[in-house]
């Protein structure tokens, strides 16, 4: 905001008014994502939380288990490798913001985790990817506490 304005005659689109809402946000990561980020940046560790009832290790970490509606207070390290659950490849996606390349999105069951972790795959062609393959994190040397501290997961 503020929006632009001005009536435009638009041919096949009819008469219109250009508008644009550009609204900046600064989303709080919250204390759980803060610790998650810090552990990735400083220690190359992926941390989840364990539900006090069903004992599932939840990723991304959160203060509660949504399945049990119980607090999840115990921090647990999960492996930076695991099994590929599902994936999709994108061709020519104009909006991929941080992960320009590679373009294969994936859900990964990291060893020790109870839910699937979303990330991207690299060092592999889409045709060579298959469900159940083992993958491992490739850490960035230049880590800043964001999701891209892991550059991608690669097959092992």
């Amino acid at each position, binding site marked *: 905001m503020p929006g632009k304005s001005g009536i435009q005659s638009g041919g096949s689109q009819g008469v219109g008014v250009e508008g644009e809402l550009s609204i900046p946000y600064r989303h709080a990561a919250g204390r759980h*994502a803060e610790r998650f980020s810090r552990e990735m940046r400083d220690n190359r560790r992926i941390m989840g939380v364990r539900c006090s009832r069903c004992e599932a290790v939840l990723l991304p970490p959160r203060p509660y288990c949504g399945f049990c509606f119980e607090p999840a207070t115990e921090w647990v390290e999960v492996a930076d490798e695991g099994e590929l659950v599902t994936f999709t490849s994108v061709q020519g996606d104009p909006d991929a913001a941080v992960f320009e390349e590679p373009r294969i999105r994936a859900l990964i069951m990291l060893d020790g985790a109870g839910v699937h972790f979303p990330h991207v795959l690299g060092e592999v062609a889409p045709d060579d990817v298959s469900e159940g393959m083992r993958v491992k994190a490739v850490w960035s040397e230049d880590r800043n506490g964001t999701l891209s501290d892991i550059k991608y997961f690669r097959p092992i």
Partner: protein
Amino acid sequence: MRDAAVLGWAQTEHRRRAVGETPQSMVFEVVTRALASCEMTIRDIDVVIDAGSDLLDGRSTSNRAVIDAMGAHFKEEIKVAGDGLEAAIYALMRVTSGYSSTALVVAYGKSSETPARCQTLALSDPFYLRPLAVDALAAGALQARFYLHEYGLGSDAPALVAVKNREAGARNPYAQEKSPVTLEEVMASPELISPIRRLEACPVTDGACAVVIADRQTSRAASVRPAWISGTGHGADPYSPGARTLYRTESAARSARKAYAAAGISDPLSELGVLEVSEYYSYQELMLYEALGLCGEGEAADLLASGATGTGGGTVVNPSGGVLCANPLVATGLVRLAEAAAQVSGRAGEVQVDGVDRALAHSSGGLAMQFSSVMVLEG
């Protein structure tokens, strides 16, 4: 349960771009036509429940702008942030509680005014998913591949959904996509994101829908044949797609079980004549057969191939052509309710299926069908 009924409804002729229309003009059109369809006027309406999207409209609390077009000034009005079928469930609560006798449900979406991608990418978590550009399409693709892999299905299985629904949509005067397609054409259409192809994804649509819901007394006295609401259910799955068993839609299964219990349905395949479901992508219709109890897990592709859910089958799914033939976002699920009500009251015109005693309407929302709503209707 015959405590409330759908009495009237209307939808726009859905289009890629409704030139010359505003959200308000589309809403005014469907509201006046819905009221006329059950011989009511706006003065007969006690409460208005509406669904719209602030992001699509580019306005905060967007219902403020359509109040007049809905005839809602000087009435009680509540906006539901979600699909129009969720607004209908709210309306049902109003009339069955005795708080209102009649409710007008309105939903609209004019997706042509802004890139739809902005809307669906904003659904995802800004820290964990948005950097991966996981929007509705990418989440759908992850789910589609998971489902196909889990049951060992080829990518031609969901493609048949598009063939079936486009064949049906060709008869629907309100549909946006009105031409049938062959399996070869679907398979040859470009991949948007694997494994979802262009012809297996919903179109971008401008459209609106309005529905009148009334209590038992009003419905019994109505001059039109009521479509009785005999069961409903609503539910949600975890926000993070990774926290779900993504090849199943638990929220739809739970919603259906609740609705079936209220409606006394034990074998939906034989007891429902029509289902109108929200398949934003072709594979979702297969998953929904299983969640809605038409078949067991992993059996949907066989059920579809048997022809049971197609034209002339015993349990026709999406005789309107479904969401693959028109996707007026936010109104999409409410259109399913209007179509289901039309089927059980014999007012479905060109898409009428013979002898439908019971029909089901389904909506979903969020990434990879996180939210589900179900309503069962009886003639």
